[in-house]
């Protein structure tokens, strides 16, 4: 039996993704601001194996200008969905219906699901569904996706309509929303394109041609001659109504909607002019003076929870690292039962089956040790992700884009470029891909280059480890990494903007600020789990083999002799690390261990911590942690500075291999890919070097050649940022 395809279309922030999850039970992001859903997503309708629900990107209109609109249009007119579910925000119904009129004109069987009815009722408003159904020639039902109310019924109705339409002999009715002369012109155009388009959508096509939609005209292969004939009718209307065709259509749509709302929508009197809760929250959050401090406080709260010495994140991490996964074991609360750590369990288990020392070392120290380091920091990442999910789902992120826009404008981007950077807090790979929504190629390139400077989840593991080993009493060092990331983006952006390649007019910025709403626990959990799952999988698929490989190169020398733990400095890893360590000398961690950890970070950033753990495990003594601290003490007379420098280097050089691969792909050209990598390498290196060299100077370590180099390069960078911009290139 052929599958029934149902398109799910609606404005951003209308609750579409919540409905989609409701209908299909699949995992999805519920972002509360435009641009999150760029890819099309589909799923099977619950309880109906042969019905596919296709989630379209949130769109405001079916115009030919933005990527999301083009993707949606393409699906709706080319892929022949059997029905459409149009989700409409009942608390914002006027603007939502603008898209609905266009969807209805496509002639597809349609169910309008008016969402957030619980809030509408609470506000005391009423909506007359029957009147809307009559005006738009479709079925209208009320739902509350958040409460799981009515969604499935709406979907089943859509299936019914699809099946009925398949059997019907002629296409369904479409609404007529325009005035006499416009309708007249449209009728003429319809005549001219008879047979070129599916009968049920002919009206939609005719209206598009009236608007002189270039994509449609091209796709239909309408020649200059044919167009001239239709042009005459269009121009007559334009002259009569004293406006251009596109504006005429948009104006008349809204007039039609206004008239409809006068009849179908009754707003409660008492609500008029009273500030909503959202307004009240925004009074603080986007307040002229309070907004930035609130934002920074929010970031600090997140980091305090995640890595502060006595905060929940650290407590959980310590438990996970040493107790649960390590050797110490832990006591079940309220009991006397001691559970041995997984590491001791593995070691004991291997001992029981008589496995030799070498293989035990491979498994316990090598593979497990490395993986456990990564898994052990899951609590920190978990806290960060939950926090971010909450902020995105409740609607705060749109406010952040609003607040930051002016800053981003300084280098030709918009507050919307902040979105990839926020996504980058989770992982750089989707962050780079999220830049796809930026139409302007130049802006997109700049966003791709800058997006990965925000520390991602994997980099967070590095921050967590160093925070706990070197900066326990300075939890704000973690927050500082985010702030530095943002600073690099802003300053780097300004510097790039002044180069000829990136100069030009800024992209437009017209963005909705949706009402705040309390996210559901399930929503946040889904959102968080999606990201967390990626990390845990990465541990198994990438880091495990990487650890095994690293164990190998640590325990064998070039003649492939097995080395004892104390002979690690003769190993392949030490040798190779040594060859490049001299490059890192000015940064304070120029030893083979520092080099090996940094290079391994390109496989996956958290691998740096895994490598350090592996090295530490082979240094003898009781505590791997103490070993790492001693390691840095041996690298530099200023171990905390060296540790800080190591962190800065690994956080701000090019991201991991996968993210670099995606960068090359999204840039579309090898030259731009290399430029991105080169820029990032320069920034990370210079930053670490400057902090180390100048830090050493300030700490009384004296002035050396490299101090001078650092200062000179820093001055050049400052010049690149503050120099006057060249003439603007068109």
């Amino acid at each position, binding site marked *: 039996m052929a599958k029934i395809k149902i398109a799910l279309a609606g404005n951003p922030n209308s609750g579409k993704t919540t409905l989609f999850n409701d209908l299909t039970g699949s995992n999805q992001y519920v972002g509360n601001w435009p641009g999150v859903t760029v890819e099309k997503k589909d799923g099977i309708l619950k309880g109906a194996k042969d019905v596919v629900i296709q989630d379209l990107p949130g769109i405001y209109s079916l115009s030919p200008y933005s990527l999301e609109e083009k993707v949606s249009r393409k699906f709706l007119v080319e892929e022949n969905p059997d029905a459409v579910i149009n989700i409409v925000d009942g608390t*914002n119904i006027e603007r939502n219906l603008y898209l609905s009129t266009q969807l209805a004109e496509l002639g597809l069987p349609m169910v309008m699901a008016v969402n957030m009815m619980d809030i509408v009722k609470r506000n005391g408003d009423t909506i007359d569904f029957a009147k809307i159904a009559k005006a738009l020639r479709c079925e209208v039902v009320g739902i509350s996706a958040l409460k799981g109310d009515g969604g499935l019924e709406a979907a089943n109705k859509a299936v019914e309509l699809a099946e009925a339409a398949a059997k019907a002999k002629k296409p369904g009715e479409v609404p007529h929303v325009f005035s006499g002369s416009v309708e007249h012109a449209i009728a003429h155009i319809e005549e001219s394109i008879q047979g070129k388009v599916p009968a049920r959508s002919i009206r939609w096509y005719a209206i598009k041609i009236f608007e002189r939609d270039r994509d449609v005209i091209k796709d239909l292969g309408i020649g200059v001659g044919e167009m001239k004939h239709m042009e005459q009718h269009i121009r007559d209307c334009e002259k009569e109504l004293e406006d251009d065709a596109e504006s005429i259509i948009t104006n008349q749509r809204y007039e039609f909607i206004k008239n409809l709302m006068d009849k179908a929508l009754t707003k409660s009197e008492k609500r008029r002019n009273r500030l909503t809760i959202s307004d009240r929250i925004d009074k603080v959050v986007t307040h002229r003076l309070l907004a930035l401090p609130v934002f920074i406080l929010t970031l600090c709260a997140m980091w305090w929870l995640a890595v502060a010495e006595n905060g929940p994140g650290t407590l959980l991490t310590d438990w996970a690292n040493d107790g649960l996964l390590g050797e110490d074991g832990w006591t079940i609360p309220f009991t006397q039962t001691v559970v041995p750590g997984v590491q001791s369990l593995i070691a004991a288990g291997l001992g029981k089956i008589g496995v030799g020392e070498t293989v035990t070392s491979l498994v316990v120290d090598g593979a497990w040790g490395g993986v456990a380091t990564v898994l052990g920091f899951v609590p920190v990442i978990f806290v960060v992700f939950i926090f971010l999910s909450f902020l995105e789902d409740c609607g705060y992120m749109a406010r952040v884009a609003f607040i930051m*826009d002016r800053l981003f404008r300084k280098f030709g981007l918009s507050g919307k470029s902040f979105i990839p950077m926020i996504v980058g807090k989770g992982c750089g790979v989707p962050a780079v891909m999220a830049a796809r929504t930026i139409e302007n190629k130049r802006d997109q390139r700049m966003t791709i280059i800058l997006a990965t400077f925000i520390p991602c989840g994997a980099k967070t593991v590095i921050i967590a480890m160093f925070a706990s080993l070197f900066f326990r009493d300075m939890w704000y060092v973690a927050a500082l990494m985010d702030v530095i990331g943002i600073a690099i983006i802003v300053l780097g952006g300004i510097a790039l903007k002044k180069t000829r390649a990136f100069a030009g007019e800024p992209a*437009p910025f017209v963005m909705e600020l949706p009402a705040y709403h309390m996210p559901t626990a399930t929503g946040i959990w889904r959102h968080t789990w999606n990201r967390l799952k990626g990390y845990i999988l990465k541990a198994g698929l990438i880091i495990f083999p990487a650890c095994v490989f690293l164990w190998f190169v640590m325990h064998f020398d070039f003649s492939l002799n097995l080395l004892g733990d104390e002979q690690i400095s003769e190993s392949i890893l030490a040798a190779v690390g040594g060859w490049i360590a001299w490059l890192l000398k000015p940064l304070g961690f120029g030893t083979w261990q520092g080099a090996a950890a940094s290079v391994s970070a390109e496989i996956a950033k958290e691998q740096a911590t895994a490598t350090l753990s592996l090295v530490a495990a082979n240094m003898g003594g009781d505590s791997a942690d103490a070993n790492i601290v001693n390691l840095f003490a041996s690298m530099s007379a200023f171990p905390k500075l060296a540790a800080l420098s190591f962190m800065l280097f690994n956080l701000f050089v090019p991201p991991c291999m996968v993210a670099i691969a995606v960068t090359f792909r999204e840039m579309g050209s090898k030259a731009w890919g290399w430029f991105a990598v080169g820029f990032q390498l320069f920034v990370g290196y210079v930053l670490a070097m400057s902090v180390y060299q100048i830090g050493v100077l300030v700490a009384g370590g004296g002035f050396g050649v490299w101090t001078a180099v650092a200062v000179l390069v820093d001055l050049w960078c400052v010049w690149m940022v503050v120099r006057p911009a060249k003439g603007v290139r068109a």
Partner: protein
Amino acid sequence: MTLNELEIGKTAKVARLLGEGPVKRRMMDMGLTKGTEVMVRKVAPLGDPIEITVRGYELSLRKDEAAKIEVSV
């Protein structure tokens, strides 16, 4: 007068859209059409963009985009 000149808290009606192309279309799509009532809610902390209330929801746009919208008080 253009929208960017409208004081915070004041309401006006859209008289004419001066822009063209995709930006103009976007503004109309979002409901900024002739005769629509708009109210300037606030200005962002760094001075730009502005937040307006239109057709019952909040929209943010830059001052130079708002300068392309003629309004009548």
